[in-house]
């Protein structure tokens, strides 16, 4: 610590001065480091969930405590191996997670991995729809707000963005349901499809579990329309939540780039205003936007749990709540672990995209 005073003064916030000194470099190395960072993330989350859940006791007692006698419980606990030392169970669990085996649910006696696959696809579908809504609503409006900064459109859009954020996704869902499904009766109240459509898709030879694709495969326009109509309200509820975040993000970053000299230069060259905002100012603003979009995956997944509960959309979130009610902690642990993997992976993907767009990000 005595050498501290000898150190050269710190370069203020900028990144460029240190660029030359950085070791290695190269996108390959960067991606490798990023990829390796996935594992500690997953490891920490999975371990945390394991230990936290185990502080409540073993899963069998939690799930069946009131229903079976102590003798029967003891037998089940022994069969499942929950009477072994906790560290043995912990390492066994880590090994299982690594090989994609998440155990068997207690309440329904199905492999957790099967549950994850079936319902995970439903959640993925919902999140995908929501992202589309968020992009379509958030990004153009963000540019509009940035361009008319501090003018009426900006004021209106900022309040809109804050409202999107301030409205809990389940409340937005309830309102949408009330207006469009109950009062206007133009959209279905809940579920992913009507029973009829679900039956028709059930008998497809190679069904994917993604209703959008399955409905297309049936070749029946009525089924396809039915599936799409069911997706509108959940996608809107979850999408608007994220749209508010996108809007604010795009606005702030485009405001930043609109003030730069190259935008002024472009304007003086006679580039039209639309192109100025949508290309010149927006492109460089993309990096922080993409980084934050990566962080939104967590928000979206959390929101998906609430949206699915609101709309009885039978995805991971809906099942998570069902399993919690049944106190089936093996299943809960599995779902949470899977979501941890998804979050870590999506952060990795975002890092890759950011690195491909902007060479400065790599170190």
């Amino acid at each position: 610590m005595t050498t501290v005073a000898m150190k050269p003064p710190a370069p203020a916030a900028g990144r460029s001065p240190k660029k030359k000194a950085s070791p290695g470099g190269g996108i390959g190395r960067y991606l490798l480091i990023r990829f390796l960072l996935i594992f500690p993330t997953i490891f920490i989350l999975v371990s945390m969930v394991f230990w936290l859940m185990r502080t409540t006791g073993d899963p069998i007692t939690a799930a069946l405590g009131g229903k079976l006698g102590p003798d029967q419980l003891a037998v089940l606990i022994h069969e499942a191996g929950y009477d072994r030392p906790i560290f043995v169970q912990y390492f066994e669990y880590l090994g299982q997670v690594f090989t994609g085996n998440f155990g068997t649910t207690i309440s329904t006696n199905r492999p957790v991995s099967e549950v994850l696959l079936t319902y995970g696809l439903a959640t993925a579908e919902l999140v995908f729809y929501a992202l589309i809504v968020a992009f379509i609503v958030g990004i153009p409006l963000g540019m509009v707000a940035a361009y008319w900064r501090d003018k009426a459109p900006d004021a209106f859009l900022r309040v809109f963005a804050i409202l999107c954020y301030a409205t809990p996704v389940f409340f937005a869902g309830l309102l949408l349901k009330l207006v469009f499904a109950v009062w206007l009766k133009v959209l279905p109240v809940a579920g992913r499809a009507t029973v009829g459509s679900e039956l028709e898709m059930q008998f497809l030879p190679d069904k994917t579990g993604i209703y959008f694709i399955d409905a297309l495969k049936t070749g029946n326009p009525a089924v396809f329309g039915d599936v799409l109509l069911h997706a509108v309200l959940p996608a809107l509820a979850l999408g608007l939540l994220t749209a508010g975040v996108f809007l604010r993000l795009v606005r702030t970053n485009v405001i930043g780039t609109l003030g730069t000299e190259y935008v002024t230069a472009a304007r003086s060259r006679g580039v039209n205003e639309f192109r100025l905002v949508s290309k010149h100012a927006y492109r460089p603003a993309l990096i922080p936007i993409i980084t934050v979009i990566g962080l939104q995956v967590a928000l979206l997944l959390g929101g998906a749990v609430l949206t699915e509960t609101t709309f009885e959309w039978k995805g991971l979130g809906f099942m998570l709540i069902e399993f919690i009610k049944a106190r089936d902690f093996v299943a809960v642990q599995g779902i949470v672990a899977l979501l941890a993997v998804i979050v870590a992976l999506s952060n990795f993907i975002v890092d890759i995209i950011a690195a491909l767009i902007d060479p400065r990000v790599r170190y």
Partner: protein
Amino acid sequence: MTVETTHAYKAPLWTRLPVVHQVRQSIGLQRGMLVVGLVITGIFILTAIFAPLLAPYGYSQLRGDSGTFGAQQAPGGEHLLGTTVGGYDVLSRVIWGSQTAITVMVIAVVLSIFAGVALGLVSGYFGGWLDRVLVVICDAVYAFPALLLAIVMGIVISGGRSGLWGGIFAAAISITVVFIPQYFRVIRAETVRIKAEAYVESARVLGASNGRIMFRHVLRNATRTLPLIFTLNASEALLTLAGLGFIGFGIEPSSAAEWGYDLNKSLSDVTSGIWWTSLFPGLAIVLVVLGITLVGESLNDLADPRLRSRRAPGKTAGVAATSVVPGGTLTAGPGGIDGLEASSLAPDQHPNDDPFEAK
């Protein structure tokens, strides 16, 4: 903050008070948003304090002078906003709910500030392996959906359901765990920057102890952005509480009123066209979050020279270099909490920018 102004002209005391100063500093739209936010937040706090006087009935009251209230009564008459499926008075539960909300918010935010600031300060100041480990753990926790983490914590703390204080603390601690990484990141990033400042080095040369430098020199300057995160997090705390309540981790209706719980119970009402049981608790959440967010965003913008000025934003960006902490306030800012999160990522993503680590 500085001593040099002792003989110079000083503005009257009331204009230098934290929020008043910002209101005076703001102009136009920004002032409008700040004032609206302050008014809403003020009403919310007053409602919470005077809930016993304002609410026509108790939060768990099922019968009045003329017998039981009855379930799902339409608004009007004795029940201004109707009654719930459980037979409670909606207006009373909305008013009492503000008390629960504010209690959870304050406990959660205070706990997470203490834990997050302490960890961030130590981690950023001493660096080394402890810093690495804490950063990786906090990144992992931070990346994870807040609500899911809160659910897991809820299971651990209360097994899912509990009474008044048990429920409030379960919710508050669940939210705390979610927030610690945010404070940790911001404080750590600031600490890493500040410890390279000349005044920290001079303090060290003068022989100040680590503790003194950390608390007197670093902490004082690192916490400038905290009020901003505080307001933004308070609203997130409320949303998490409501989310927990909505999925059934709420506080039992007999122990306290909680908006998320009421919305959960109104889920089936909506399908049959009963709107008052969901609309009012929902609006309460939206209004409170809106108010607090408006205050937080406005303070955030005002603290950021690029966003404060109405004129050419690019030209004022250089202000940072002359401020006490280069890049200090600037990093914690644009885009509300997302800006805070995104920019506080920077030190982790670009370790080579940090003069202490690029050895």
